[in-house]
Structures are given as structure tokens and as C-alpha cells.
């Protein structure tokens, strides 16, 4: 069971989107982000959407879902969450 658990373990990713490549069928970029996310996971929720610092969102995905998402058109990068520390 352990490898299966690991395979399905969700981690937080920050997804960078190419906003200028948003298909015209979407009225708002958040709808496009949501549609992209739903195409790889029915259950994943967005933690945050970003527009000033990046175009994209953060969410929790399995490793496989992250790879699927990264291969889609309009996705620039799917980067794993990093932990920072106080100095």
C-alpha cells in the first residue's frame, strides 16, 4: 500500500499560466485556470489565484496530475511549493 499512497499523495504546486494564450471561449482567466485544473483532477481546489505576481494559481495535486497539467497548452510551469524560513 505504501507506494500507492505515495503515488496518490497530494502536494502543493504553483501553476504558471500563459495568460495571453487563453482561448477566446473563456470570459475570464480564472475560468480558464479552473478548466485547466479540472481537466487533470476532479477534486483539486485552487488555494489562491494570482494575477499581479504571476499569472496562475496554487493547488494540491498528485505527482501524476502535476505532470499531466504541465504538458498542457497554455501552462508555462508547474512548480512545487517551497518552504521558507525566518532569518
Amino acid at each position, binding site marked *: 500500500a505504501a507506494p500507492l499512497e505515495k503515488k496518490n499523495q497530494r*502536494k*502543493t504546486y*504553483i501553476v*504558471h499560466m*500563459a*495568460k*495571453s494564450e487563453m482561448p477566446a471561449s473563456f470570459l475570464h482567466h480564472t475560468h480558464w485556470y479552473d478548466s485547466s485544473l479540472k481537466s487533470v483532477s476532479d477534486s483539486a481546489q485552487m*488555494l*489562491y489565484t*494570482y*494575477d*499581479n*505576481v*504571476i*499569472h496562475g494559481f*496554487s493547488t*494540491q495535486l498528485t505527482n501524476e496530475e502535476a505532470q499531466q497539467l504541465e504538458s498542457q497548452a497554455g501552462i*508555462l*510551469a508547474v*512548480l512545487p*511549493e*517551497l*518552504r*521558507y*524560513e*525566518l*532569518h
Partner: protein
Amino acid sequence: TTRTPEFLGLSKAADLFPESDSASEVIVGVLDTGVWPESKSFADTGLGPIPSGWKGACESGTNFNSSNCNRKLIGARYFAKGYEATLGPIDETKESKSPRDDDGHGSHTASTAAGSVVEGASLFGYAEGTARGMATRARVAIYKVCWMGGCFSSDILAAMEKAVDDNVNVLSMSLGGGMSDYYRDSVAIGAFAAMEKGMLVSCSAGNAGPGPYSLSNVAPWITTVGAGTLDRDFPAYVRLGNGRNYSGVSLYKGSPLPGKVLPFVYAGNASNATNGNLCMMGTLIPEKVAGKIVLCDRGMNARVQKGAVVKAAGGVGMILANTAANGEELVADAHLLPATAVGQKSGDAIKGYFLSNPNPTVTILFEGTKVGIEPSPVVAAFSSRGPNSITPEILKPDLIAPGVNILAGWSGAVGPTGLVTDTRRVEFNIISGTSMSCPHVSGLAALLKAAHPDWSPAAIRSALMTTAYTEYKNKEKMQDIATGKASTPFDHGAGHVDPVSALNPGLVYDLTVEDYLGFLCALNYTEFQIRSLARRNFSCDASKKYSVTDLNYPSFSVNFDSITDGSSLVKYTRTLTNVGSPGTYKASITQQTPGVKISIQPGTLSFSQANEKKSYTVTFTGSSQPSNTFSFARLEWSDGKYTVGSPIAISWT
């Protein structure tokens, strides 16, 4: 903070800095552990209406609501979705799901940057004086992103997103993590967007010194701040039974030791653990330490926790000895029992006393606060050092500022040691780190922003860097406490910040977003990587030759290949903008070591009007040198009135 305004010359130069309207228009955003709004450092006495451009909010949550904000603390938000997604729901019995600071770090950094004036501040009488932030009239906006389990990049990015929306002017971030490439590093990514909006982002360099390549937050659009000492100390001497005294430091206040020497034991000899010398939890044998003063070695666990371990085992006092990792650097702590910290040399000498004496005895003499300590500043051993591991051609840190034994505001939810067992509560605490130096620079940047509202973040940083100093008043070179020798630009960057000189730098090295995009092209970033980082479709011009060495940075980091036979030649181009009076500036180079020939073309630049730009080229011709050879120099442009200095670091790798 107490003492740093005097140390930085702010107290005597108060009339040079704008203290009214323009200063109170500047907003300093602090990404940290939140804020203790009841701290007197966030009182809004004398401040006018909140700046009209402010779009932030004061969010409610555990023990925090909108009435906790005022005309000083104008915004407070918290970001925990990323944290909770990874570590589960926040336990609100242990930490506040709100902007409230349960840790102290955030209140300390925020009050250092822009705290109000508080008379009679001290920690148990130590460092007594009038405490104030660097920009006393600037407004504070808090973005809580750090929790008991750490600070997560999705939360940091969300906070920076809001800070941009809210119209913050200066962003202070005393945190870091690893050494990721810029397009993978959320702090670098968020800082790029902030820079685009005209916000200066000041970050701590890290506490991973004194080893080389230990920096974090090295993106060139970030101002990276290392740490130095003040001219203040808290001496607490060790007096051995043989009459010998050794210098130490302490912030202990409480029941005094009896006025006589006490039995003394080395922790390594009072433990069955292999690391018993470190006074880790549960490793001391109570029968061997009861009623004694215990010598513990520094390392592994928190310094103050070692004291708590000694106390729990029945010890009556502690001497904390540095090892080679910390050398002679002394960091004072508000220990729970009578304790003092000594340097490695003293620690070794005291250990020698154990070997020569079957019944060792000792006492500790607490001397309070001393000012006027020289030399000062010295670079703190813990301050992270260059070279820059991501882009060796960009010299980091940018500069240093006070970061050792800094008194500033604290949280009422936690004692000064931060230990759960510490039930003491204080309004101010004294702590050390590049976390403490970073908000000094953030506050000073806010002062410069108030004085020069039209200056870009790069111009403000340039002013802070080119006026920083690397020599004491007696012309001796600034020292590195880790070595006891002169520090180098890899340790102190451009030098120690001098805000009074930075107010009128004469010339600045300015940078635009396009310059940074060219820099990314020079790094051979892919179109995807540039779009990730800069949120725009940008293609590098295939016909254009991009060079990292042409980024108009106020410092120089030159890299020669040690394998190359014969001499190598590297050219750096820079452009200076006149922000002072008309003048003719002449270039001069001070060179510490041979191995490289440096020439400037042209050697003279004349400026006749404000904002006039003039370019020059520096040619470095290096002779063949072994790998890991370093050489340092300094370029100065001076018209007799202003001196515009740039550090030069040359590496053979």
C-alpha cells in the same frame, strides 16, 4: 530600536529627513509572523490620515479585528491556505489564525523598519533608551505568511500579490529558502512584479555564514542585506576559581548568583550521551549538575534551550562556549538562568581549566549595557556570504546593516527566549539575525523614498550602496568577526549603510524593467522561463548581444577562468545618472592585490544638469591565477563633494 538611530547618524541628522507629509505617505509592507498591535511601537500619535492611495485592509481573525489597526498600522492580512493544505488546519489554541503575532519576530522586524518613537524602552533594563523605527512616520502594513511550521511559497506569493494591489512602497522580507533559480523562487518572482510597480524589496541575506556561497535572495531586483554589529555590548564575565576572567555577553535578569564561586562542570562530563556537551534536551545527568554552573558547547539546539536544559537538570548557571563554527562572535540571550556566552578561544581556555583542576569553580559577573564598543560595525559571523551561487557576476550581499543584539518590539504572547517554558512577557526584545538588518534597510529606503519620491527602487538601492562605508573613522578596514581580519565585498557587499550620505549620493546607477529583462536574456532564460517570471510575452532579440556584465548594477563581480592560460579580459559597462548638482567626476581605483589590471574609460565624467546620464566601461585584465583565488578592489567616482563607490570582487574559478 534603541542605539541604531544614533549609530546610523539619524538622530543628529533628523532635520535632513522629511518628517511630515512625504514621510507619512510611505507605506512599508512586512511579510513575517504578523504583528502585536498593542505594542507602543505601533501607536499612531501625531500621524495624519491614511495615504489616499492605500487599498489594503485590516483583516479579522483569532484575537484580531479591524479596530486593531490605526493610522500607523494601516493594514494587516494573513495567508494560511498553503500552510493548511500541507500541514492541516491551524491549531488556534496554539497560534492565531489572524494577523496577530504569536512569535515576536514579525513585531520586531516591523517596529525596526517603521515603529513609532517609544521612550524608556528596554529589555529588563538592557539597551535602555528611546526606541524607534528607521522611518518613524512611515505607515506599516503587515502580511502574515510565517506560521509555527514555516512560511510556504504559495502563501508568500499570495501576500506579495496583495501588497502590490494594496500600493505598498517598500516590502521588507526577513525570510529565505534555499538557492533556487529565479524563475523557481517565489520571493524572486514576487519581487520582480513588486519592482515593476516601483516597490523596493529588501530581503535578508541569510544566517548561513561565515561559509562562502551561503546567500539567499540574490536576484538583482532584490536588495540583499547582510548583518553587522553595533557599538553596544552586554558584558557578563566568567571568573574562574583560579582568578582568571573571560569576556562574555548576556541579557540575563533575575535572581543573582551568590557572591562567591560555585562548583563547575563540563556538560560533556555530566552526560552519557555522545553529544552531551551540547546540552540537548534530556541529556544531562541531574546528580552531576545539581547546584553547579554548567559549560555547554554551542550548536544543534537553540542557545536559550540549552539554558532551560541546564535549569531543568538542577544546574544554577550556564556558560555557553562557541565552537569553530561561530568563532568569537557573541550573541546575547535573555536566558532563564544566570548564563553567559563566550567565544571559542575563551571556551577552549575554560575547558583547559577543567583538565588542570579536580574541583573547578566559577561565577558569572553581569555588567549591564556598554556602548562605544570599537571596532564597530564588524560583519557578523552568521551573516551569509558571497559569491553569488546563482549569478556569480552579480555581487551579493548588496550591503550590511545592524543585525546583532537589536532591541525592538515584541509579541505579548511569548517570552523573550521564545521557549514555551518562558512565562516572562516583555514589550521589547533583543535578538540577532539578518532578519534584523533587513528591516533597517527597508526603513531607510522608506526615508529615501519620502525624500525622493520619483526615484526608482534601483536608484534608492544605488544611493544606499554607493554611499556605504568599508572603513572606520581611523581609516582601518572594516573587520569580519569570523576571521578577525578585514572583511571583503563577499562579506559586506558595498559596505555598511550610511543613510545620511545616501540622502544625497550625487549619482545613481538606475535600472528599468527592460534592463532586468535583458539580464534574463543574458542568462539564456527560455521564453517560458521569462514569461513565468515576468508575466509577459518577451522574446530576446537574436541579433542583440546580451551580457550579464552590462546590467547597470552598483557593484562589480568579475569571474576569470583559472584554467585559461595567459591573461583574460572582461568588460563591464555602466551608466551613471546625475541626481545632484552639476559636477565633474573623476574615477579612481583602490586595489588590494595584484593579479588584475583595471582600467576605466573615460576616466572623467561631466554632468551639467539633473538626470543627465553618462556611461563608462571598466576593463579587467586578469593574469592566470590558481582556482579559488580572490582579489578585491574599489572604484570611486568623485567630484570632491560626492563620492560614488562601488565594490569590486574578482574570482578565479
